């Protein structure tokens, strides 16, 4: 068996734009993927949700093609999208080989010349669209506000992860067109971006096209990257009432940042706790005792700091207290004894397979172009794929146990009960009502 690899060529243009090329000639398509190193962590209290609203505006057209970003690309057979999280904003197109230049022209025009196309009318419409996105995906969705309650307690009010990327509704309503200009000038320029082309294209041509379309864009100073710290000094117990049938308990801890020491271990721990019927929490809570109907556990890896989250939904008539006790008991076991050899063998097989499956697509969210940009932006090295794999293959029973013991403390976590409206008594004892809006 040979380890999977993700080969590439990288070149940085004079204006600071990183250009990365990966060749894959099986299908006549090319993925274009751009990351801007800006996310909701770069916002300030009272101005939350701005990075994401800005992403919407990037699809409304730019100076030399003010008629909207989608039409020419759809006409060329492109699939395209973008997304914003706490740490970065990404944009991508997957185009037939015949439309690579079109996609680069469009991406470079909005990188260099967005503002003249952003009219007050478009700005206001997209603000409404985002408010609808918020209603649809958070307010009108069961348990949709839980993460807001958790992050607002896990991080202090001035911490960049205190708010969620979607932002507060009042902040979104208060946004002004003027804010767009300043934000664009600060964050949307070549020196704060990373461009990857992956697919059926020769590297010299890809590099030449990147230089042609992006080379004359004005450079800008790399924005200062924010830093922040957060600690928990006790257990915070919260309760949130929601339009739900069944109560759910969430437990959240601070954990290592993306790629930091212990990050891979916590990711593996999430799998061994709650991925599949063999996992410890699923087996105990759902399969054997049947006190929960679902359980999840994962390491939320982010640039400034990570969080580890466990959640379980009560089976009808079952108490969150019993569920929380059972979760704590399983966590205690893994902290005391570490994973078994069988668990580590399963993890090794799944890690190998999933790193390989990630190499099946060139574009879109999570495709090879997106991974190369992630490694470049967060590690400064698109070639980090192999080291990333090594982080997982070198994890041991002992290192997973040590990470769990260090991080999963019962006296430094947020425990949230989400209960049906009007039934706060179903929450864990001592939970304080939390309000989110």
């Amino acid at each position, binding site marked *: 068996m040979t380890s999977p690899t993700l080969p590439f060529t990288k070149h940085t243009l004079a204006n600071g734009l990183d250009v990365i090329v990966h060749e894959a000639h099986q299908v006549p398509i090319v993925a274009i993927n751009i990351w801007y190193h800006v996310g909701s962590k770069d916002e300030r209290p009272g101005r939350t949700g701005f990075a994401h609203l800005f992403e919407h505006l990037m699809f409304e057209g730019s100076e030399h093609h003010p008629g909207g970003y989608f039409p020419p690309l759809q006409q060329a057979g492109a699939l395209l999208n973008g997304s914003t999280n706490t740490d970065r904003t990404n944009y991508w197109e997957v185009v037939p080989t015949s439309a690579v230049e079109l996609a680069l022209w469009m991406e470079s025009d909005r990188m260099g010349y967005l503002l003249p196309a952003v009219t007050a009318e478009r700005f206001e419409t997209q603000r409404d669209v985002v408010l609808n996105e918020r209603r649809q995906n958070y307010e009108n969705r069961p348990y949709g506000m839980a993460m807001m309650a958790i992050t607002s307690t896990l991080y202090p009010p001035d911490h960049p992860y205190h708010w969620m990327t979607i932002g507060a509704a009042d902040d979104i309503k208060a946004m002004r067109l003027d804010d767009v200009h300043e934000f664009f000038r600060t964050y949307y320029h070549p020196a704060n971006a990373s461009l990857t082309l992956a697919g059926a294209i020769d590297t010299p041509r890809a590099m030449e096209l990147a230089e042609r379309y992006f080379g004359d864009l004005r450079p800008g100073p790399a924005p200062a990257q924010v830093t922040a710290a957060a600690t928990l000094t006790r257990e915070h117990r919260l309760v949130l009432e929601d339009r739900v049938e069944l109560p759910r308990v969430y437990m959240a801890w601070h954990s290592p940042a993306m790629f930091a020491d212990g990050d891979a271990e916590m990711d593996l721990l999430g799998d061994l706790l709650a991925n599949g019927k063999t996992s410890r929490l699923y087996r105990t809570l759902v399969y054997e005792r049947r006190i929960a109907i679902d359980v999840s556990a994962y390491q939320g890896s982010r640039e400034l700091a990570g969080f580890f989250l466990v959640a379980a939904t009560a089976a009808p008539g079952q108490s969150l207290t019993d569920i929380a006790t059972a979760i704590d008991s399983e966590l205690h076991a893994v902290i005391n004894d570490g994973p078994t050899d069988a668990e580590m063998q399963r993890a090794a097989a799944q890690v190998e397979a*999933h790193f*390989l499956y990630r190499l099946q697509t060139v574009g879109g969210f999570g495709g090879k172009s997106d991974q190369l940009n992630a490694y470049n932006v967060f590690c400064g090295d698109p070639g980090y794929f192999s080291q990333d794999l090594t982080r997982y293959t070198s994890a041991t029973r002992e290192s997973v146990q040590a990470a769990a013991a260090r991080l999963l403390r019962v006296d430094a976590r947020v425990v949230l009960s989400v209960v049906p409206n009007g039934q706060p008594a179903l929450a864990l004892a001592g939970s304080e009502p939390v309000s989110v809006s």
Partner: protein
Amino acid sequence: MAVDRSSPPPVGNDPLFHFPEIVRHTLANGLDLRTIEHRAAPVVTLVIQIEAGSGADPGNQEGLAAITADMVDEGTGSLSAIDVSDALSRIGGDYDVEVGADVVTFGLTTLARFADRGATLLADLITRPSLRETDFTRVRQLRLDRLRQMKDVAPAVAERAFLRLIYGAHPYGHLSIGNDAALHAVSIADVAAFHGGRFVPSQSTMVIAGDMTHQAMRALAEASFGGWTNSPTPVAWGRASEIEPPAESGTRLAIVPRERAAQSELRIGHLAVRRNTPDYSALLVMNSVLGGQFVSRVNLKLREEKGYTYGARTGFDWRRGRAPFAVHTSVHTAATADAVKDAHAEIEGLRGARPVTEKELSLAKASLTRGYPRNFETAGNVARAVAQLALYGLPDTYFQEFMPKVNAVTGDDVTRVAATHLDPSRLTTLVVGDHAAIAESLSRLVGDALVISPEI
């Protein structure tokens, strides 16, 4: 050299597209095998498609097909459900089940070097599941709990109510998960009988796509599924697609009340045609213009012009029998009546009052054809696409012929199929939303509302 920014650069000639060869073979037990070599990654995807979709549910046991499919990985031979999960993870296996209206599709993707172990395990699960009572009780309870949770999920409530409204008692008129009473009525004996009658090789299809030769894939199929036997006493069963749904008459407004809902979840549509209609290509183009993509009339109107929603789309939920056509969206409560009005107007307009423009036609066709090759990037994509050919009885040349057929669609074709297959006089408008806030304005628009329970 500075870039010319006066206009976007022209798009070159479309790259040549070749769908890889599909090799067919029928095993001695009648299993229809199709293999495709796909060498992009050392991965293989196995798909087994069986005539046991939710349309096969008996009338009083809605949910039987789905729970049977769910029971497949709950154990086989000496392996418990836990052992099965362990065996899958040891080969890095990615196992999934999709219960469609007509068929159920099992998929397993694994590393090519584990193809033998994966195929053997999949065959054991599908052909010889344990179907133990104790597992069944647990699985059924989890499904009952999920049904209960779905009452809070507006899109799920809307899907369920909409199917029931337009199909009535027809076997397509329910979600695959079924309903509370029906699930309670199902026993493990019913599951065993359903499995015994429906899970037969002579009515099933196997597709393998991956980093192997056709010969090796055929040997893999023979070794794993060659021993699958047909029932000595075959059960006669019909297909849901052979039953004609009830005729709809007139427009209808139905509301599932959801107090203080921030948004209204909308479905607006009616029964349309079968997947094998000769108008299929024209309908795809028509739908792209109306609401099948971002740049389409419905999305541009409701999202980009009005800001009523995060997104709006239209589509056909294809199946062998008559398929639903519907507008799908979720809009701000205050905009509900206006959004319904706009959606109705867009459906009506494309039928002739505001026919498709040359520009729209060109955009719709190009977006369907030029991006087509990206649908076949992974072994999983390819295997599932070929399984669709078996589902709808389409020729092996289908993918190769797709682009020319779509490109041959004319503006007149679009108007004709919109006028023929979309019918404003039969539209059902379903709203899951704040009844008190929306009922009056909606009634003025589309008549009195039928108020229905989320458990219709």
